[in-house]
């Protein structure tokens, strides 16, 4: 088993796209679930989708939740409050940017790292320089 990842976004397509991208890096070892858009697929967030996504990927190895914007974080926090005490202890909510964070977290999770380690690695995505010396001057 490995740490699972939940991707919360205001966009259904964005969440699914990030799951697709991150899954490519995870060699099939990691459970990922998308929780994007409202229940009817419009832009926004859904508490129900977040809870369902957590349920899909949960194991005692834990789950890292990544979110696109602050309001997605609010819904993620509400979801955590609804979990059993036991499950909540194996959940972490990431500050990382959602795309880069998901990708590095997926790699870390795929090598069997702990939830704390996966979360720490996701955090490093905040400082990533993805554009190198090719920056136009």
């Amino acid at each position, binding site marked *: 088993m490995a740490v699972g990842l939940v991707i919360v976004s205001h966009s259904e397509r964005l969440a699914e796209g990030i799951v697709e991208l991150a899954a490519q890096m995870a060699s099939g070892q990691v459970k990922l679930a998308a929780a994007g858009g*409202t229940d009817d697929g419009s832009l926004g967030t859904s*508490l129900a989708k977040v809870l369902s996504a957590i349920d899909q990927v949960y194991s005692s190895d834990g789950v890292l939740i990544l979110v696109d914007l602050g309001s997605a974080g*609010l819904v993620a926090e509400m979801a955590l409050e609804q979990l059993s005490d036991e499950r909540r202890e194996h959940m972490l909510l990431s500050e990382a940017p959602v795309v880069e964070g998901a990708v590095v977290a997926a790699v870390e999770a795929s090598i069997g790292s702990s939830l704390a380690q996966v979360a720490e690695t996701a955090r490093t995505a905040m400082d990533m320089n993805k554009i190198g010396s090719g920056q136009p001057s």
Partner: protein
Amino acid sequence: MAADRAGVLAWLRRSAEVIRDQRELLTDLDRQIGDGDHGTNMDRGFTAVMNKLPEVADTDVGTILKTVGMTLVSTVGGASGPLYGTAFLRAGTALSGKQELTAQDTLIGMQAALDGVVARGHAERGEKTMVDAIAPALDALRASIERNDTLHETLRAAAQAAEDGATATIPMLAKKGRASYLGERSINHQDPGATSSALLIRAMLTGA
């Protein structure tokens, strides 16, 4: 709002009407300093609330308010979903089992709602949010109760304070939410969340 379960239902119905009537205004305010969906989101939320209410109309004030909260968080979609959702959930918990409400109960409910909004969103006064309407309304409610005003006078004082609070957000710099991404461009616009909060608080006067 007569101080009982029927009054709470009347308030919620009036709230849904007002939100629908002011939907364009709210969306417009949100277009200027947000993602332009506050009116649409709130209208969707309160329409869903109206559809849900018959199921819980015979219960108690606490259950009704908690149902409103859960419905809003499932349907409103933006940050307002979790924020208003938590407000109503906390108010409902504080007023569990109640069939009638004293002015003091209204205070307890509104305090619980504000505490919920602050716990969820971490906003303080002056950051250009719904807190800037609700906190002054709560102050006015408390002061009015201490003066032993009638319930109608108390609710009127709260509504006026909420409206003044919403207007007072105009010169503020947004520190929270989508508007905070705009920086100084958020100045000189009234906050949509404070505006919708003031509308809901004004609606409490229905039937009072």
